[in-house]
């Protein structure tokens, strides 16, 4: 049993990332005659994985803030790599200092909420990133109910930055039982008969709930907003009805729009809830994942002034439909005929090491004497020919304008055709960049774009991460 929280530790910033594409669940039954359901699910682009989505969520969380993390923890049940630490890629994309550790919490769905809880109960300022892609065989419940997404929560104390939601209680209940499992490398999860899991989750939830309330010295009626998440939807619903939070509104668990993003789900839904939360509200987060975690927060006055660089709500409102055939291709359920072009070679570790700032963080160089911007960075200026008189020019958060567009129908791509645009960045600098999250025919000269971290291809099991551009949201989003 935890001791009473000191009250000044909690969430400093939080943001979610919802990929651009949506599968209309009704498309599944139209193809196979069964499966699917109502609403939509979010689908990671063919050029996204849990690492790239984690980068995007972390960028939304950190952008515009003064606080920087002194630790980065990354949790996913769908890691891009085993053995190699995926958090290091996020660390590089965020340009965190070398002395900031980057650690993976891997494998289980519980690792996301576990990382958040551990950060809340630890010291220092920790950026917790959770990300997941959820797959299933065609017509399965996991295929339609699952969702892809990520969230990032910056955890720390008031002395690091104003806490927008302080932790006031936390409890856990753990038990070994077989409910949901997946063999490493398998394209699908499996689940035991649902009723059995429900008989386990509900009493565990009740136990953790009461312990957390007691620690916070609250009664169920003091909770203003209740958020119950978990892959076992039936048990989550049953538990929510038994908690006695009679005065609490139910927070949107995003399953109707995003789907259940597994490891990321509790953090993503919490980030969404915080976007519209008022000060001095008690928020209860109850997470069912091989046991039950309960976190109780009280929002502070600082939340009134907090808004992430991009809200989850605006990302849900945006987005575009993805045909079911493309979904099946992107999820590697079906394989489409590739262009008759050579597949790319694996990238070089040593070259990538030398160009880390460019490749992972999109940092160019600016010539001090002429001001000319170089993308990629160079040592000799194209204007004035000065040598080694350059300063780093971080461009990941700089928007640009499309000058020319070209669609390549013959180049190799995991999802052809490739669309490139010549982009002139605000304040100088030009680069031909690959466009993503857009139908090529919708692009026009003059469109505003922003950079996004993506996976270009995979060769020899090495993922080639770099930056692409997507349309910038309109003014006001």
């Amino acid at each position, binding site marked *: 049993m935890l001791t009473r929280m000191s009250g000044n530790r909690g969430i400093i910033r939080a943001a979610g990332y919802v990929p651009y594409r949506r599968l209309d669940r009704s498309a599944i039954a139209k193809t196979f005659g069964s499966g699917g359901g109502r609403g939509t699910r979010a689908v990671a682009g063919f050029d996204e994985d849990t690492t790239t989505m984690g980068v995007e969520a972390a960028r939304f969380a950190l952008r515009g803030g003064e606080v920087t993390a002194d630790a980065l923890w990354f949790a996913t049940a769908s890691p891009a790599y085993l053995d190699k630490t995926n958090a290091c890629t996020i660390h590089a994309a965020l340009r965190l200092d070398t002395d900031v550790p980057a650690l993976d919490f891997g494998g289980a769905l519980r690792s996301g909420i576990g990382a958040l809880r551990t950060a809340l109960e630890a010291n220092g300022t920790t950026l917790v990133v959770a990300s997941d892609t959820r797959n299933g065989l065609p017509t399965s419940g996991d295929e339609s109910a699952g969702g892809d997404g990520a969230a990032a929560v910056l955890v720390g104390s008031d002395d690091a930055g104003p806490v927008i939601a302080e932790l006031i209680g936390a409890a856990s209940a753990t038990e070994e039982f077989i409910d949901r499992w997946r063999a490493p490398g398998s394209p699908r999860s499996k689940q035991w008969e649902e009723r059995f899991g429900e008989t386990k989750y509900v009493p565990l939830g009740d136990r953790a709930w009461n312990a957390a309330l007691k620690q916070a010295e609250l009664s169920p009626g003091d909770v203003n907003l209740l958020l119950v998440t978990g892959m076992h939807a039936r048990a989550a619903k049953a538990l929510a009805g038994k908690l006695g939070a009679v005065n609490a509104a139910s927070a949107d668990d995003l399953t109707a729009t995003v789907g259940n993003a597994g490891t990321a789900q509790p953090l993503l839904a919490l980030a969404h809830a915080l976007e519209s939360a008022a000060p001095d509200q008690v928020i209860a987060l109850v997470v069912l994942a091989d046991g039950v975690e309960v976190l109780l927060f009280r929002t502070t006055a600082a939340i009134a002034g907090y808004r992430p660089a991009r809200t989850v709500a605006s990302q849900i409102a945006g987005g575009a439909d993805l045909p079911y055939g493309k979904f099946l291709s992107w999820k590697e359920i079906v394989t489409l005929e590739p*262009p*008759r*072009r*050579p597949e*790319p*070679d694996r*990238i*070089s570790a*040593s*070259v*990538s090491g*030398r*160009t880390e700032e*460019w*490749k992972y963080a999109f940092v160019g160089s600016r010539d001090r004497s002429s001001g000319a*911007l*170089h*993308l*990629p960075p160079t040592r000799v200026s*194209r204007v004035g020919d000065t040598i080694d008189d350059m300063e780093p020019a971080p461009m990941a958060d700089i928007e640009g304008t499309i*000058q*020319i*567009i*070209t*669609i*390549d*129908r*013959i*180049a*190799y*791509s995991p999802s052809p055709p*490739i669309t*490139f645009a*010549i982009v*002139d960045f605000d304040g*100088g*600098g*030009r*680069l*031909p960049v*690959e466009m993503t999250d857009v139908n090529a025919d919708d692009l026009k*000269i003059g469109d505003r774009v922003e950079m996004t971290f993506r996976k*270009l*291809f995979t060769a020899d099991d090495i993922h*080639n*991460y*770099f930056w692409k551009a997507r349309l910038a949201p309109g003014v006001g989003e």
Partner: protein
Amino acid sequence: MASKGIKDQVAIVGMGCTKFGEHWDKGADDLLIESSTAALAAAGIAKDDVDAYWLGTAMGAPSGLTLARPLQLHDKPVTHVINHCATGSETIRNAAYAVASGAYDIAMAIGVEKVKDSGYQGLVGAGKPPTDGTNRTLTAAAMFAMCAPAYGNKYGVSEEQVRETLARIAWKNHYNGARNSRAQFRREVSMETICGAPLMAGGLGVYDCSGVADGSAAAIVVRAEDALRYTDTPIYIKALSLVAGNCSGNADPDYDYTHFPEIAAAGRDAYAQAGITDPRRQLAMAEVHDCFTPAELLIMEDLGFAERGAAWKEVLAGTFDLQGELPVNPDGGLKSFGHPVGASGVRMAFEAYLQLRGEAPAERTIAHADRGLALTHNLGGYPGEMVSFVGIWGNELG
């Protein structure tokens, strides 16, 4: 530019050129033997008479052994050169400079490419160095496709007019290629077919892109003063220029994709070497690098064949047709020949050699051969980052 040039110091006295096409039954060795044998015969010499060889291949095994083995050369220097799509022209440039230096009396420049063994669509680059994976993944077609709308926007040429202009270039080159027994494609293609072809990249259809072919071509170069010992009709080298750009175009917001500064620079240098002041009226013909139709359009302006913003009108007016004021790609160009990278530049010089010697067949004879000067041009790379070669050839000294 500080090129002094070697005007009238070196002459081509014999050339050979294979048919270009899908030579499923021939390897690079066969093509090299065929073109070199023809070139030696044209000069009336044997392979042992050749003091040194320059071999161009961009996709073949990168050493002189690629030539020495199939030709069974004994104790001869063979230099492998490669410079993107200017590789073929580089063989002549380097062999000519070696002869001009006095180091050798007779040299052979020979280019070859065996492209069709890769099994892929389009050109496949040579062995590439390991990278960080951040390089562009676009094909050349997609890069050159950007030039068409950029040109139209800059000069107020409508999308339809740009389309017609590009089609006219493809139409012209196929018209010429239909009259060339060495061409890969020997069929005229209608404007309607060209405009209605499946899109490859941007607004470029199949007929806006050069073909893919195997081929080889070779030239024998000697000192100009010795030339008449080998032929009555030598072709004298008037200028050889090469520019490797600094690749800043794609990083420079001032670059607008409507011109190729590397080509303009190479052209200026070559004209200065050759003493040409009015290329459109002094040249009898030009072979230019029509890898994609927008490239040929922009080259017309970069090489001074048309005013800036006016080349599209000249194209439509037929200025560059076979019987036009300045025939461009009278042999059919890359459009009809495909582009075996190492051979293309030498193939272009071969057309200049034929036309200036009056040996082109009647159906392909140009109107102003009496001007006595021809230009060949290659670009290698992409808009914003390319090498460019310009050579000028003449049938008389002085």
